[in-house]
């Protein structure tokens, strides 16, 4: 599946777009875990560890739909899906 990082997250991760491979249909939480692996700065920018959520500082969209409108990070994704991550807090 394709993951796009917009705005300051692109610089934080050092990459704007990447492909991640999974077997079966992982949840968004599993996709994020794989994305954050080895990218501690990105995890810090997106994930609020105190509340265990992205909702306090980022937007996550699956195929153009904000995942709060789906089943949150429990939503399942498939091989052709596109996940977009966008930081809310910076670049006013």
């Amino acid at each position, binding site marked *: 599946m394709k993951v796009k990082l917009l*705005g300051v997250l692109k610089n934080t991760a050092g990459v704007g777009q990447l492909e991640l491979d999974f077997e079966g249909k992982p949840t968004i939480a599993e996709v994020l875990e794989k994305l954050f692996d080895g990218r501690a700065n990105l995890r810090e920018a997106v994930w609020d560890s105190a509340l265990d959520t992205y909702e306090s500082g980022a937007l996550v969209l699956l195929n153009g739909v904000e995942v709060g409108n789906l089943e949150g990070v429990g939503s399942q994704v498939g091989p052709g899906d596109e996940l977009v991550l966008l930081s809310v807090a910076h670049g006013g």
Partner: protein
Amino acid sequence: MAVDCTRCGAPSVYYRPYSGERLCSHCFGETLLERVKRTINKHRMFEHDNRIAVGVSGGKDSLTLLRLLHMIEEMWPNSEMIAVCIDEGVRGYRDEALKIAERSCRQLGVEMKIISFRELFGETMDEIAARDRELGACSYCGVLRRRALNEAAVSVGADRLATGHNLDDMAQTVLLNVLRGDISKLDGFDPRGRELAGYVRRVKPLCEVPERETALYAYLNELEFQSVRCPYAGEAMREDARRFLNQMEVKRPGTKFTVYQMGLKLASKDVAVVAGTCPACGAPSRGGLCRVCELTGRR
């Protein structure tokens, strides 16, 4: 699978926690436009024939403001709009933002004027940040940028200055002033602005739009995003207030609106008023030198 839009029945893209609405991309944009119009009317921000300077930084909030005001202003043929941009002189960060602002203005056919810290204060933000200083860089930048925006608005003959302050900014300001025990600084909080001699009335039409929604609006409308973070960002106390309010908003949707409403009530109490003018530059001040002259060492 997304459920239907609460307003039109099309597939929704966004769930709005504080209202319970599910909205499609079109209705989401419409609700923001309606809210901004309502805010403008409620606070009587504009007259039908204003020349409006819009403070555009190149970030998502000011680009969203520019686009929404452009739509609203088209309905008022006697009004005019011009973008004013401040070049603080932050290498890398501001260069990128100004290019984004320029492209957005060109796309909308809005005239743009850039004014720099170097022109106004004789030094760039990078130079100020590099010298020995008592305060954080954001404290200097905030004060000087406010003055620069006013100078820019005056120079283009504007009678209103619209800025992209959103609901999050407003709620953070309230909380910061409460935490510092100084609610007298809320005298400039009113989103309708004030009439002060030498100052263009500054209004905040996005004051009831959460930052999360300006970001979503920018994404859904394919506005460009800055990729470079300001190297001086992270003023400790505002970041703390931001984090706290964001977390409270997740736990208790509507918290930011509540804090903002409290700020309006406190600001209406006339806790402090501008008392006089700065003896060095003539700008309004609480008595003695204004903050700009204090920070730049003008006497």
